[in-house]
């Protein structure tokens, strides 16, 4: 299971700055268990955002958001509501955000941070991997994770090593993550996100399993085992 935790509300509001209409996406998988993106949480977010003057064009809770084929199927009946929105707010782990961003032609914001749970991870979906960094930056990058898509984990833009859109490290199999981010943002008319962001100094401390989760995860169970 993948543990996610809602970002502070002001941070989410910041993402939606200048936008009026939002479509909400939740997930019936891990995000339901973590209470970040189940139906109740989605409805709660709807209410909070409406209080802030936003219009929620619709919402959809998918089972499961890490399956790109399912995301497409489940979102397609909502196409008019998605079309009417300025952006989508995805209340799940980073994989769900990336899977959603890959199938809609809209800006996608993450509502949650995905926490590292010390070796317990979900079923990764190919290119939509999440490093469980605890401080999701997908809002800035068009829903493509630079920590997984870029070999060097660069979060402040591309290095000079890409050739024909391919990473210099493994040009035969690997796209340059920042080339993908650039192409996506360009398509969305959002290149300023890449241009004007302040230098990001990543807090890698957040990649450690958070203390409040250690007692509930495999890591702790293993420690108990050794005591017995």
């Amino acid at each position, binding site marked *: 299971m993948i543990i996610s935790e809602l970002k502070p509300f002001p941070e989410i509001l910041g993402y939606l700055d200048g936008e009026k209409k939002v479509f909400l996406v939740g997930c019936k998988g891990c995000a339901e268990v973590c209470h970040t993106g189940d139906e109740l949480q989605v409805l709660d977010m709807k209410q909070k955002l409406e209080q802030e003057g936003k219009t929620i064009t619709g919402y959809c809770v998918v089972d499961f958001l890490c399956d790109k084929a399912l995301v497409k199927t489940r979102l397609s009946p909502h196409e008019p509501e998605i079309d009417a929105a300025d952006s989508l707010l995805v209340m799940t782990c980073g994989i769900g955000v990336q899977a959603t961003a890959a199938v809609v032609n809209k800006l996608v914001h993450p509502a949650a941070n995905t926490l590292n749970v010390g070796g317990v991870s979900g079923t990764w979906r190919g290119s939509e991997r999440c490093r469980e960094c605890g401080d999701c930056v997908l809002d800035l990058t068009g829903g493509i994770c630079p920590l997984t898509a870029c*070999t*060097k*984990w*660069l*979060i*402040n*833009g*591309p*290095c*000079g*090593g*890409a*050739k*024909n859109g391919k990473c*210099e*490290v493994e040009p035969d199999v690997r796209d340059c993550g*920042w*080339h993908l981010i*650039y192409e996506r943002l*360009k398509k969305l008319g959002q*290149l300023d996100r*890449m*241009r*004007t*962001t*302040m*230098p*990001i*100094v*990543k807090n*890698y401390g957040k990649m450690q399993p958070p203390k409040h989760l250690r007692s509930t995860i495999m890591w702790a169970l293993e420690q108990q085992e050794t005591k017995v």
Partner: protein
Amino acid sequence: MSLSEKLKNGKFAVTAEIGPAKGVDIHEFMENAELLKGRVAAVNCTDQQSAVMRLGSLAACYLLKKKGVEPVFQMTCRDRNRIALQSDLLSAYVMGIENVLCLTGDYVTLGDHPDAKPVFDLDSVSLLYAARQLEQGKDLASKELKGTPKFFLGACVTPGADPVEPQLIKMERKVRAGAQFFQTQAIYEPKTFEAFMKEAKKFGVPVLVGIVVLRSAAMAKFMNKNVAGVHVPDELIAEMDQAENKLQKGIEIAARLITEMKDMCQGTHIMAIGLESKVPAILDAARL
């Protein structure tokens, strides 16, 4: 006149790079430094260039400084975390080294220790930002410093990248983070460079056009195939191929490129890669 003064006063600045030795025999390094002394504004010392382990850039810069040659300390983020990077910035300053070229660095698998653990805790942009923070008297953890350093911060950009827009975007982020000058990746097409400079000049930061000296047609073809953002046009490859004296031709082409591009930018950065001793000849031919 220092590199920063030269660029501030609008004088055309020449820099060249020397790769420190793989080992501790510094004779050739010092000889090359002697040849460059007085001919260039500053000399870059590469930092484990191409991820190949060798003598450190900081030590090499110190040797240059002692010899009266102004160094540019190249720093990559591949091998050190933010603690070591900030510490080395402080170390550089106390040794009188103020020019720092902040780079991300090639990936470890491209070098001679492919099994190494890559670091990349910071990157070129956040390293520039870190250096700026130190200048404000604080480190990245917002802890106060006893005495503050002052740097002249440089960065790299690839004018021949295709598409070039991501490079320009990153350049803008580097300027915002604190970059005060740029030394470019090698460029062999003056028209491409002219188009790049048209966009880049809005940042108001001096740009030193990068020149890599050609040694053969094979080298040019190798770069076209393997080095991102570098394209040697067919005419130049043919010129190298037909030349009897390849060395002389490489020098001639480098000088010609400088002459053609010098009015478009604020300086040139010559990467001779093994032909450091020929840099004075290139400068003679370019009348610099």
